């Protein structure tokens, strides 16, 4: 009993957002990878917000004296075939990465929440229809799905966000519905009904908060996936339009020279890999902290 109380359910409550920093310091000892990954992710985010001040050059400034220059004191990460500074482009590129990553996950999570909630709270034909719609989205990998949307909507950063976001509705809707079904069967929902609390209020106060929280945790994990899909779209030339400093686009531009000047693709590629790995570790860490099922096993 005492053992359970120590690691018990109260932890999730005490560790709310305001104590995040203190929590990180305490965790450095226990989970170094999680802390390192968090620091890296925050560094990328910082770079995205303060790009004009952090980056040594403008993203589209072309230095005719340094075409495809290797890393040097003037250009830390070298330049590309137009003489554009790769480091600056990678830094400005983080803006696209985070804009697309966050926005599409917000769209996916919002759509998934609406559909999942509706499917979880209804019966019969409505539920059946919604779930078949979700199955249809889930049937295709998110990249294929996004390509299909781009081909309808046309290229452009806003279109990428819509496409990636829509492709993510499926998985979000599935988990939301599962959570709704589970919460709906809880005694506190029945208790609220017995007290005469009306249906909308039960959904708003009792079901929604217990569904949104795990959803938010899942969203942090899915940001990495959204970034990967959007970069893949740009790489295929279907997403962000040149000369925007998008990482996927940059990797694609350097592809032709990969054997002679590997840094043109290599630098954005490494940045992408580093960010994705960091975000995944952060996402797993957050889930571990808040998912009651995983927590019980720790």
């Amino acid at each position, binding site marked *: 009993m005492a053992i359970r109380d120590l690691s018990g359910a109260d932890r999730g409550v*005490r560790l709310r957002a305001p104590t995040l920093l203190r929590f990180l310091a305490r965790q450095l000892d226990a989970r170094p990878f999680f802390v390192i990954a968090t620091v890296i992710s925050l560094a990328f985010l910082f770079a995205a917000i303060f790009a004009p001040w952090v980056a040594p050059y403008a993203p589209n400034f072309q230095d005719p004296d340094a075409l495809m220059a290797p890393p040097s004191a003037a250009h830390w990460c070298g330049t590309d075939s137009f003489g554009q500074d790769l480091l600056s482009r990678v830094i400005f590129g983080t803006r696209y990465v985070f804009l697309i990553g966050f926005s599409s996950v917000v769209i996916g999570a919002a759509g998934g929440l609406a559909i999942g909630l509706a499917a979880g709270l209804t019966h019969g034909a409505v539920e059946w229809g919604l779930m078949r719609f979700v199955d249809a989205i889930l049937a295709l990998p998110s990249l294929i799905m996004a390509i299909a949307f781009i081909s309808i909507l046309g290229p452009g950063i806003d279109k990428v966000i819509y496409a990636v976001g829509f492709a993510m509705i499926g998985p979000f809707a599935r988990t939301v519905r599962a959570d709704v079904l589970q919460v709906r069967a809880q005694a*506190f929902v029945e208790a609220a009904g017995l*007290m005469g609390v009306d249906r909308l209020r039960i959904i708003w106060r009792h079901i929604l908060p*217990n569904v949104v929280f795990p959803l938010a945790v899942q969203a942090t994990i899915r940001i990495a996936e959204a970034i990967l899909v959007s970069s893949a779209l740009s790489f295929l030339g279907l997403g962000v339009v040149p000369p925007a400093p998008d990482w996927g686009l940059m990797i694609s531009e350097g592809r032709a020279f990969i054997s002679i000047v590997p840094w043109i693709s290599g630098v954005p590629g490494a940045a992408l890999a580093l960010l994705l790995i960091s975000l995944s570790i952060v996402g797993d860490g957050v889930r571990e902290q808040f998912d009651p099922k995983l927590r019980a096993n720790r």
Partner: protein
Amino acid sequence: MSDAAPIFRLLDVEKVYQIDRGGWSRLGRRPPRQLAALDGIRLTVRAGDSVALVGESGSGKSTLLRVLLGLTESSDGRALYRGDDIETLTDDKRRSFQRDVAMIYQDARASLNPRLKALDLIGEPIRQHALCRESELRDRVAALLARVGMPADTADRYPGQLSGGQVRRVAIARALASEPKVIVADEAVSGLDVSTQAQLLNLLRGLQHEMGLTLMFITHDLAVASYLCRRIAVMYLGRIVETGPTKEVLRHPLHPYTRALLNASPRFFEPIAETLPGEIPSPIDLPPGCRFAGRCPRAAQDCRTHEPPLATTHTKREVACLHPLID
């Protein structure tokens, strides 16, 4: 007390669950299988009364409670609240039912939304029935917490921050928040430490006396039943086998099952009693005759063919047994 108005009346309530729709086996057509969770339940709960429903798991006491609360529809018979069918209450009467009848769940922690503070949990029925202004809510909740022996700062705690006993107290405070006249409790003190259980029993008994509550208490513990309730109804496999004033029933049980339950509860320094053989059988496709016959030390030939009804004896006690323990 017997003249008081009936709050609940159960008239031959039955609840049958369809297990399957039957089918074909090697022996031919198999009839549909049914599970009789409740069978011919007849019970009256009057205002100010306290009734304990006692029985082992699978006896149907939880199903009975759900029928009483309108959470489960009965298959047959009528369940009345102040003379009206519970399933078809008018909106007005349903509102007063929701306010007057409060439930305390067995798993108190599960019955409280983990993402709400005690203030909002206890405040919910108060807000729902608009019992006070929002500005007075905190004082009112503090008063309720004090009533169940908890400090006022509990209001800002989440259920996860409270111990098992404290969570039960918060659940009781919430049940009291709508100023109910009837409290329905399902194993409200089981699974707790003896000290916490004793504290809660005293709390419930105090509340019952001070507020004149009608109490409907489900328990498997006869001692708890006798501590809290004036009347007792012993259930076995979906039927009430014996009912009457708690003290009398426990002092002179008429039904062999009541006697067996009494024997089975542990007593200081007495050897473990001779126990009932076997276990409570599955309620699916029961054989004819008395349901207890298979485990009954007094079962005779007629017990296996005739199902005894709940009948009143000459001592004004009710028992469903062909050969009751009258010497």
